[in-house]
């Protein structure tokens, strides 16, 4: 029996095997809805962590990422979805991307027939006036466009790249652009920082970005940084992990990330890691969720990249560690977020789905690999078989896939 420190059981859990002591929320005698919810989640997580520790005594290779089961789940989802997926009928290109990216991270091979079928399907989703809709015959929308382009890039083939109608894609992007540099998600649609991210990524990947498209865009994004340090969907709204990722990634692609308040952003991002659960929350005083493993987790490589370029901060960086607890995040995902039949989830008790599988795995990959310009370090929790392929923190695509696409498209300048 390994020793456990029970002396501070009320607030501190010295789980002997876990990377870091886990600290419960101190309600301070003033319970509110927020603290009630948080306490409930911590209690569930505590049980799972204790069970895990018991199992670990018998099998020290735990925790284990159930690769085969996840591959099965995701491969099946790439072809057929049940009737209950009608609610995602306007997001089918997303389902393609989520599942292809999961396979990419798991380094599972994708059969040629599947690739061809995906290419055909995505082509059906492309509009003659440019951009992609969530399914065939749907209006173009920046989010499914981002997903479709990403999915094609994962396939790593010229055949896939060629189906993108770049001239019309450019026109579609321009049609979503507002005078101030912000982007609506579709013609007549809502404006928020997701639109900006999707537009910038798609344009940069396919080599069609220019000054006309993005003038004023970084200034608009900067207005979305809040007093807390994170970014909101639109100016004045609450700082939120998903939008913060979109903002920082877009700013990075535009070369303007130094214009935001990096120190405040870093502090906010660091505070998003939950000191009991180990995973990330999306906003201050909200609950942990597996998908934020990527939205928040990816901020750290981006911040690292920026800090490494600054005279002020580069010396202080550790080239082998991101500025968050990589092991605790992996522990949360592997111990608490795996569905028994394969696939990942938000938190225990929630159903599995392709979105959480994609972003859980993406966050896991980031937590496992630190790569600076010169050196780096891999830190895999549990079985060495848990190691995933690298994901690019700006695009959330495999790094090789990104390089291949950038090389292909940048050698073919667009003539509009």
């Amino acid at each position: 029996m390994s020793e456990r420190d029970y002396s501070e059981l009320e607030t501190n859990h010295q789980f002997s095997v876990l990377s870091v002591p886990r600290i419960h929320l101190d309600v301070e005698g003033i319970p509110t809805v927020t603290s009630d919810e948080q306490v409930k989640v911590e209690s569930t997580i505590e049980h799972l962590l204790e069970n895990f520790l018991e199992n670990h005594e018998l099998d020290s290779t735990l925790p284990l990422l159930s690769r085969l089961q996840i591959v099965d789940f995701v491969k099946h989802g790439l072809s057929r979805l049940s009737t209950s997926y009608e609610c995602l009928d306007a997001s089918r290109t997303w389902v393609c991307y989520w599942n292809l990216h999961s396979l990419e991270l798991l380094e599972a091979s994708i059969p040629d027939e599947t690739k061809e079928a995906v290419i055909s399907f995505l082509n059906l989703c492309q509009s003659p006036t440019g951009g992609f809709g969530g399914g065939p015959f749907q209006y173009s929308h920046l989010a499914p466009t981002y997903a479709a382009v990403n999915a094609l890039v994962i396939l790593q083939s010229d055949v896939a790249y060629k189906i993108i109608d770049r001239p019309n894609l450019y026109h579609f992007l321009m049609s979503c652009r507002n005078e101030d540099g912000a982007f609506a998600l579709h013609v007549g649609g809502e404006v928020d920082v997701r639109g900006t991210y999707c537009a910038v990524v798609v344009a940069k990947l396919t080599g069609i970005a220019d000054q006309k498209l993005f003038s004023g865009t970084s200034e608009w994004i900067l207005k979305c940084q809040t007093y807390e340090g994170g970014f909101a969907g639109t100016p004045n709204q609450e700082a939120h992990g998903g939008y913060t990722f979109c903002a920082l990634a877009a700013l990075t692609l535009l070369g303007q990330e130094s214009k935001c308040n990096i120190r405040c952003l870093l502090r906010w991002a660091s505070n998003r890691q939950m000191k009991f659960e180990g995973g990330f929350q999306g906003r201050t005083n909200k609950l942990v969720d597996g998908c934020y493993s990527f939205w928040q987790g990816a901020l750290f490589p981006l911040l690292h990249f920026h800090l490494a370029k600054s005279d002020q901060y580069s010396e202080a960086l550790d080239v082998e560690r991101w500025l968050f607890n990589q092991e605790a995040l992996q522990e949360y995902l592997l111990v608490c977020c795996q569905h028994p039949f394969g696939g990942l989830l938000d938190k225990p008790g929630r159903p599995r789905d392709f979105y959480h599988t994609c972003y859980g795995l993406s966050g896991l990959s980031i937590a496992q690999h630190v790569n600076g310009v010169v050196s780096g370090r891999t830190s895999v929790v549990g079985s060495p078989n848990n190691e995933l392929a690298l994901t690019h923190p700006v695009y959330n695509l495999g790094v090789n896939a990104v390089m291949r696409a950038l090389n292909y498209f940048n050698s073919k300048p667009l003539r509009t």
Partner: protein
Amino acid sequence: MAGEESKEPLSDSSDECSDQEPTWIYYRDRPEWNDVVPVELNEGPFPVVSIAYSERFKDIFNYFRAIVLKNEISERAFELTSDALELNPANYTVWQYRRTVLKGLEKNIQKELSFVRRIIEDHPKNYQVWHHRRVLVEWSGDPSSELRLTEIVLAQDAKNYHAWQHRQWVLDTFKLFDHELEFVERLLEDDIRNNSAWNQRYFVVKQTSGFSEDIISRELTFSVNSIKKVCNNESAWNYLRGVLAHYTTGLNGHPVVEELCQFLDENNSESPYYFAFLVDRMEELMQSDASKRQVLLPKADGILQVLATKMDPIRREYWLFLSRYLNSQFAN
């Protein structure tokens, strides 16, 4: 965030109940639709993310696609969009087309506001319904129901991002800030940890009085009183810092803040937010006054070591980074 994109179904079982309504007639069986040729999806022999649509879903969308292709602006097209939206309120094409029909037929906006309100009640985290509502309010120029609507939605989920976004847009566009601070304070009384409410407070102050010296004092007092009650509430600390960003001498020097630090010190507060705040105060002092560095640097470093090893170990890398940074800037 990928808000609606992540709204995956809760179960894998199909739900055939809706096809069993006695009054439902498929569009393909309606004589008044005889003139329309439905457009079926034909995606080829190899299924890719292929949804097992119910008969009803297929039927409705086959007809919707036909209507859009012929650009039909009519009452029947309008009703068809209602049916389509009941099946998938996240279909932005249907919403956009519906707006085209609404305009084309000059339909009554009030009725449409009621329609979208019902869908918002059932799907409060859907992007399209809130955007539709906003467009309707833009067309009508009438915000009179919006504060009440968002208040009701927030009563069920006090942090609903869409509701807050809509509310902010209404307040700002129509200048309806008169009672908003009261509203925020009520929410904070209900739950002092509601970060959305704190964010709203910042918004109201920013858009009305601005952060003048008087207001800064008032807001600092508010935050400090809150911190004294619940010390480990990050929302209050973030707000405090946000207010101080408008104060000329930053984290040091404001009497309200100095009193807070004294209070927390005397009470042996062990809040990581307090300790982090102290470090930042010291950084500011070391930045502006080199003579203070010799004394403050080891103090700041000491606190960071305590944070990294005992008080907030999950953020160890961050605390150690700050320690290395401060040393690189202020040593010798």
